[in-house]
């Protein structure tokens, strides 16, 4: 056992309680004033359900896009030397540093049908990005990119090139080496990155409202609906929606974490370190 185990465990629990559990119990307490059937009515109203679909659907898509491209970016950044690599490496962190409202406004201007990206997209492919649900996915992909890349980088660094050489010498093709040898080791970290991306996207507000269009039932995210209730000084209603979001997020995160433990267990990868 670690020296000072009791003290550090106590400290951990106190810290987490004050920082996380206390505000959360406040949330519970506030929405408790509603009564169950009223809570249910608010939580399952057509507008709320439509907003859950937009929020969780767009966040899931964004996390999926980031998992795919983030893996490629992380791999290139670790394994391939190229001029300006340090610069590109810093670029990855930019979505962390940029105020999200700035990101939202910039992306909206770029992808509106008069913008540099939006104009050709609409004229050639007939796709509208800004002020539609597609715009929400774009904004969420932008703000949650660093999570996948930064989670994968140290794991990729730890993979010895000798492993690939060994696989090759045993007759594995490059594709087989990736799928059978490298990928299982990366999977737990990839799942962690995906989860972080996903949960970051669910809570995002600042960038989305500038690009979403915010039409009820179409492009309205749940955080906006919460704000909408706060604007009417309907604080219990707002906390009810917040609580639903929290419960869905918690359930989803639990699922992904279980999946990740399973993957780490099965493949003996580096998952434990990241869990």
């Amino acid at each position, binding site marked *: 056992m670690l020296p000072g185990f009791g003290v550090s465990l106590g400290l951990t629990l106190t810290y987490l309680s004050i920082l996380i559990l206390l505000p959360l119990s406040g949330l519970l307490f506030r929405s408790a004033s509603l009564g169950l059937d009223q809570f249910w009515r608010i939580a399952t109203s057509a507008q709320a359900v439509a907003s859950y679909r937009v929020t969780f659907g767009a966040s899931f898509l964004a996390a999926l896009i980031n998992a795919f491209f983030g893996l490629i970016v992380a791999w290139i950044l670790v394994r391939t030397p190229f001029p300006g690599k340090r610069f590109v490496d810093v670029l990855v962190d930019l979505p962390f540093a940029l105020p999200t409202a700035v990101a939202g406004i910039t992306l909206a201007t770029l992808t*509106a049908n008069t913008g540099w990206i939006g104009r050709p997209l609409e004229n050639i492919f007939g796709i509208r990005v800004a002020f539609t649900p597609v715009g929400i996915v774009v904004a969420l992909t932008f703000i949650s990119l660093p999570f996948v890349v930064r989670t994968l980088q140290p794991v990729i660094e730890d993979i010895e090139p000798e492993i690939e050489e060994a696989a090759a010498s045993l007759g594995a093709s490059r594709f087989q080496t990736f799928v059978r040898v490298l990928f299982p080791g990366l999977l737990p970290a990839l799942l962690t990155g995906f989860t972080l991306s996903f949960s970051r996207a669910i809570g995002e507000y600042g960038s989305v*409202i500038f690009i979403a269009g915010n039409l*009820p039932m179409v492009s309205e995210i749940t955080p906006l609906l919460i704000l909408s209730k706060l604007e009417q000084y309907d604080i219990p209603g707002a906390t009810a929606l917040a609580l639903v979001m929290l419960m869905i997020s918690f359930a989803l995160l639990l699922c992904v974490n279980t999946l990740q433990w399973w993957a780490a267990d099965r493949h003996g990868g580096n998952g434990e370190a990241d869990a």
Partner: protein
Amino acid sequence: MSQTCREVWKVFVILASMLVAAPVWAAPGLLNVSYDVARDLYKDFNPQFEKHWKEKTGETVEVRQSHGGSSKQVRSVADGLEADVVTMNQASDVNFLAEKGLVASDYAKKFPDNASPYTSTMVFIVRKGNPKALKDWNDLVQPGVQIILPHPKNTGNGRYSYLAAWIYALKQPGGNDRTAQEFVGKLLKNTPLFAAGGRDATTSFMQRKQGDVLISFESEAELIAKEFGKGEFDIVYPSLSIQAEFPVAIVEKVVDKKGTRKLAEAYLNYLWSPEGQEVMAQNYLRPRNPAVLKKYEAQFPPIKTYSVDEVFGGWSKATPAHFGDGGSFDRIYQIK
């Protein structure tokens, strides 16, 4: 502890003690908690008041300002932000403070003109030369017209636009609540997006060239002219519009605790002085003082306006009826 570590620690201790001591150094003064776009107005007004107070009493005071989304500001005051006065863009925000007992329930009677030192109204901003010939509210509901509007549920700006259209429909021959809802429904059908706020709506209209018409405060139109140039758009005054009031109030609990009641009263009263009214006119807000209004009449064309009080019986009725759960906005989108 290493040398650098000790240096860092020293700086930290100094910074921390500065934070603790800061309130002691500050001059006696007021905190004015206000809505977002009033920043420029009070940046002009506060130094004038400070000068006026110095001449009158010899005291040096400092008025600090805090700006942000109006309901967020009001919630901070309710949660303990020590504002001596609030200057808002909607009565419903001040009503919330009155409900909480922070502001007198008859705050609107404590100052002249319903405690609103200036007014504004909603106008149309259209593309140069008005290519779609949009002259009045009924032109906006024609098929193919696109309207840019901030979110009617979440922003004061959007709520005024929504209610202005409602009033127009009510005042037409045979107009009633049903025809008004139908009319506003058609208007919202022509609205491809709800902007996050007033300034965001302006950006979408002016910079991203979305839509044919932007509904906005008259005062915003002038700011847009400053930002984007006068030749970029036309301002259209519809046949009638809404009167937007901007109520001010003293936060009773705070001024009693801080002993700043006299100063706070003088500050708010000074808003009605000719000098204060001039500052408002210079910020394109319609002053209450007839002499000042006359002086600036070139920038304020006459327009028939109705107040929320006379048409809807006040914000405390208009808000739940139109923007609350199951209100007219929700009914238009058929949200249950």
